[in-house]
């Protein structure tokens, strides 16, 4: 478990909300977007998470603590939002991931080229992975966290995280090889 001890008085860290917003908005928004696959929802989530940080600013002990807290809360909020979205979609008889797959199919048919198009398509494929695998991959490759750090953030055992990373990466690669012509050509 990561601990965030209080620093001695002379080195006391003073949180500056505006600076924290400036520094972390992009991280929070990106995590939320990649987890939900919905830009508008991600924007809403990012706003909620940052305002919650403002309410909890007094509890923050260090800059690292803030970063850890933001990642953890964003992942939980995104997970809750996905659950709500799935429930809503189920009540309407639609599937969230079918929706994303359809969107991916449209992108494949479009005339995107080069590294940018490959990145965009990889990102689309990432959105079709199971939630836990997607979470592990996003924290690993977007946030550059180690499996141990991901385990603490997600409150999961390290072994589970490692397995999610391996499976997610494998599944993503299989899907990429099967569907992304640019990727196959690039190898």
């Amino acid at each position, binding site marked *: 478990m990561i601990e965030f001890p209080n620093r001695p008085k002379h080195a006391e860290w003073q949180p500056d*909300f*505006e600076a924290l*917003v*400036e520094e972390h*908005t*992009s*991280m929070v*928004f*990106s995590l939320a*977007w*990649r987890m939900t696959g919905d*830009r508008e929802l991600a*924007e809403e989530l*990012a*706003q909620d998470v*940052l*305002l919650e940080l*403002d*309410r909890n600013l007094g509890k923050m002990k260090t800059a690292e603590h803030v970063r850890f807290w933001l990642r953890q809360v964003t992942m939980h909020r995104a997970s809750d939002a996905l659950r709500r979205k799935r429930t809503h979609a189920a009540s309407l008889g639609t599937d969230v991931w079918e929706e994303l797959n359809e969107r991916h199919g449209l992108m494949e048919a479009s005339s995107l080229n080069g*590294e940018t198009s*490959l*990145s*965009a398509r*990889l*990102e689309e494929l*990432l959105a079709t992975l199971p939630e836990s695998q997607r979470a592990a*991959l*996003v924290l690993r*490759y*977007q946030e550059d966290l180690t499996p141990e750090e991901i385990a603490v953030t997600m409150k999961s055992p390290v072994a589970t995280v490692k397995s999610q990373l391996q499976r997610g*990466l494998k599944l*993503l*690669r299989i899907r*990429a090889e099967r569907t992304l012509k640019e*990727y196959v050509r*690039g*190898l």
Partner: protein
Amino acid sequence: MDFEEQARPAKNEERELVEFERRLQVAIRRHEAPLGLKSRVMAQARARRQARHGRGWMLQRIAASALLAALFGGFAVYHENLEHEKQERQIERRKGEQAAEQVMTALRITSKTLGKVNEHLAENAK
């Protein structure tokens, strides 16, 4: 098939995986935050702080009013008690005065009676 030939596909596989991880890392770099998101967050945080400050100010005013009301109420009760005590003291004093007058009257009557008894005795002695 020698060892090198056997190891080649595994090495290729590893290289491909490393390359795939690199591409994935490039693909999922952080997005720029949407324009206006930061300013919206700051505006809402400011509004919340002001509302909280306003609520605090209102609570302070209510507390001060309650304190003043309690002080005035306390003073009124104290004043009323003081008046009541004063009236009671006056009644007691009046009662004391009446009692003293009654005693004096009784003494006067007794004195008169004794005087008459003395006169009567003196007449009998003659």
